[in-house]
């Protein structure tokens, strides 16, 4: 009937490249969105823009040098990365870590969790348009960075741990400052909640958005808050305690509906639980050395090991193979939580609107340095 050539017009589908340079893809994530109007029909998640080959590099560094490479993975939670790596090597070499060092490590890891969640909360709220929360959260994160600076001299990439313990004991009076920070933080969390938790617009933007069932979450290999948001009880700190977590009393918050709002509530509750852990650790901080008996030249026996810890983003695992001859790992592999959680983005995003896409990128809390390594 019609004689005109058909490709004269666009089809209904609009393809949009979100990123790699987009204000709310949290780094250099690129999403190729296929839109029908404003609705997302399909999405391709493209990554690798900050791939630096950390795993391969590590196979040519000696065991201590790798610590500062791990800093560069999840650069907003460097101390946690250090902790995971050092514990894996300790497990491989069967080194006993002094109790005081384990306590301080726990404090550092939990401070880091608060800092990471602060950054997450700020950017997540900013993505949804609440810009004041962003600056409030960064204000508190700054206090943590000050604490880290006093402890190890760095503010972002700390290089704060060593195989077998810690490079330094805590400075005098540092524990009191951490205690003071806990008090401040405890007072500030309600401030965030006041701006968001019962805010009607916030509820409308997060409730029922990006719902994922427990089975799907497990099937996709999600971990950390996105998994717990779907009411799956999984926290490495409880399931396979490391550092000194088995000596402290804390709870693992769980969601019920598995939506963005639940994941938000979980992370806010984790603020409180982290403060609780830090206080217990400070109260029970034992005396003693901070470095175990470690040979000058680290040279593990031939063997392989996998060890996981609970980073702020989820389960951070290291798999290391040593051939027993060289002073560097034969094989070094990281199970990054951001990467695994990013798997969940596509099923979460499909069917939602463009405006929700940024909220959903925020809710899974990815750090591209860790995704790409």
């Amino acid at each position, binding site marked *: 009937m019609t*004689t*005109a050539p058909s490709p*004269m*017009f*666009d089809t209904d589908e609009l393809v949009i490249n979100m990123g790699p340079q987009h204000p709310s893809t949290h780094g250099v994530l690129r999403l190729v969105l296929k839109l029908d109007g404003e609705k997302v029909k399909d999405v391709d998640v493209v990554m690798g823009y900050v791939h630096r080959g950390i795993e391969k590099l590590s196979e040519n560094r000696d065991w201590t040098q790798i610590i500062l490479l791990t800093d560069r993975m999840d650069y907003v939670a460097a101390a946690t990365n250090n902790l995971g790596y050092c514990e894996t090597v300790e497990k491989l070499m069967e080194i006993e870590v002094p109790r005081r060092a384990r306590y301080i490590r726990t404090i550092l890891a939990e401070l880091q969790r608060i800092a990471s969640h602060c950054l997450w909360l700020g950017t997540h709220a900013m993505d949804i348009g609440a810009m004041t929360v962003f600056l409030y959260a960064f204000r508190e994160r700054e206090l943590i960075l000050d604490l880290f600076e006093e402890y190890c001299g760095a503010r972002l990439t700390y290089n704060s741990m060593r195989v077998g313990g810690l490079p330094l004991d805590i400075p005098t009076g540092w524990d009191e400052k951490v205690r003071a920070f806990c008090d401040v933080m405890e007072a500030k969390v309600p401030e965030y909640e006041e701006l968001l938790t019962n805010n009607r617009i916030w509820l409308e933007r997060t409730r029922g958005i990006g719902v994922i069932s427990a089975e799907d979450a497990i099937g996709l290999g999600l971990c950390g808050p996105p998994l717990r948001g779907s009411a799956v009880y999984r926290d490495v700190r409880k399931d396979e305690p490391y550092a000194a977590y088995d000596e402290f009393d804390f709870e693992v918050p769980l969601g019920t509906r598995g939506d963005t709002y639940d994941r938000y509530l979980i992370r806010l509750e984790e603020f409180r639980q982290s403060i609780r852990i830090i206080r217990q650790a400070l109260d029970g901080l034992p005396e003693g050395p901070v470095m175990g008996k470690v040979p000058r030249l680290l040279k593990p026996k031939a063997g392989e090991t996998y060890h996981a810890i609970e980073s702020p983003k989820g389960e951070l695992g290291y798999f290391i193979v040593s051939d027993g001859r060289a002073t560097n790992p034969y094989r070094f592999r990281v199970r990054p939580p951001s990467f695994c959680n990013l798997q969940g983005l596509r099923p979460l995003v499909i069917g939602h609107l463009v405006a929700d896409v940024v909220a959903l990128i925020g809710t899974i809390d990815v750090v591209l340095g860790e995704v790409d390594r």
Partner: protein
Amino acid sequence: MAETIGFYTLSVLILGLAVLVVTAKNTVHSILFLVMNFLCVAVLYVVLQAEFLAVIQVLVYAGGIVVLYLIVVMLVNLKGEAEAHQDPRRLSVIGLALAGAVLLELAGILVYSSGSDAAVPSSEAVASPVQGNVEELGWLLYTDYLIPFEVASVLLLVAMIGAILLARREV
């Protein structure tokens, strides 16, 4: 004198923009000329002391109807020349000739009628209890022309429902 200059300026603008509307290649340009045309017509209404109509012209035509056209053009997302295909039975020359004939006819009527009633018939004074253009218009609309007014509102309602039904994606 000022009125004369104003009238001719406006006439030139209105007719020129109308020609541009009809001839523009790009549909969006055409729409923009249409908006300017309507704004000029609104100024003409002000000259004719119909301020209310002038504002309604801007509000409904320029601010409402033409925005609809613009949205539709953007939704339709024309890529190529919309007029690529021409029906062989279409005869544009005859169309132009017909339009010319219409113009001639109108001119003829005009010349004929302007000769016959040079004297302005004194209008039978409408007994309007209110003063001012807007008030009188409102008075007329809600008294003598109440039923047409209601019919118009029903028409708009029907049009609204019809448009929603037509534009709905899945029927």
